[in-house]
């Protein structure tokens, strides 16, 4: 299955929802925000949002800024 993560197309496997994706990437859930097809998904909903072919996902985190 190919999806677009942060602007780059990636082939992923054995991942059915957002929580799987976050875990597979080794990301700290407390430090990131996830947008699924332009919609921000609250953390407690990650397990309920399925990922399908062609989805666009943004994963962002806080960094230093002025």
């Amino acid at each position, binding site marked *: 299955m190919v999806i677009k993560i942060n602007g780059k197309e990636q082939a992923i496997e054995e991942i059915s929802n957002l929580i799987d994706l976050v875990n597979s990437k080794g990301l700290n859930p407390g430090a990131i*925000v996830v947008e699924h097809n332009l919609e921000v998904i609250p953390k407690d909903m990650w397990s309920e949002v399925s990922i399908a072919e062609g989805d666009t996902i943004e994963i*962002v985190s*806080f960094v230093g800024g*002025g």
Partner: protein
Amino acid sequence: MEDILRIGGKSLRSRFFVGTGKFPNKAIIRDVLEASGADVVTVALRRVDTDSVDENILEYIPDNCTLMTNTSGARNADEAVRIARLARAAGCGDWIKIEVISDNKYLLPDNMETLKAIEILAKEGFIVLPYMNPDLTMAKRMAAAGAAAVMPLGSPIGTNRGLKTEELVKIMVEEIDIPVIVDAGLGRPSDAARCMELGCDAVLVNTALATAKDPVGMAKAFSQAVEAGRGAYLAQTGGERECASASSPLTGFLTSSGE
């Protein structure tokens, strides 16, 4: 009695807002923030690099600080709105510094797109503080659209050039009902003190701290300068004079006694 700045329902003791970008390392940010005494701290959002593990900036920000996420990277109102929503979803509160920039050389803000973003975000309950080009009429519109404060630039972002827009900012302070916070370009504590003496409600500083040889020392210096400027504003200066006015009594002493 106490001199409190109220923005977005919060009572801020410190009028020194601090940005967290460009520091040589993240660990120093905690000390900088502590030295600054800041109540409001800005952060940015960026795409995670899924190939490396980055430290979480939020770990370095004291819990009692109010986080304000900026919309840096946004080139129009829609992008700013999108970033704001992402930020709020992260559970870090609803303070947003709107920053919409299409000019990559001087990073000057786009007042019209900024105004549009304010209109949308204020309605969604965000506490919106727009970074803006100093402009009285636009500032009035931003206030009417629900901005919690306006943040005119002193000089371009990251230049350390000081308050080069005093003429326009001074008028805004006089004519605008919401807080005026000078953001961008302040390079020295004396710049910050000058803003506060003019009646600005706060200042936001980042580059001057991050590029100092000793960021922690500079943070403390700015903090003192902001208090100094605010204190002077409240204590009210006596005004300038063209000619000299003796501070010691000159009359008569030894003048006629030499005979």
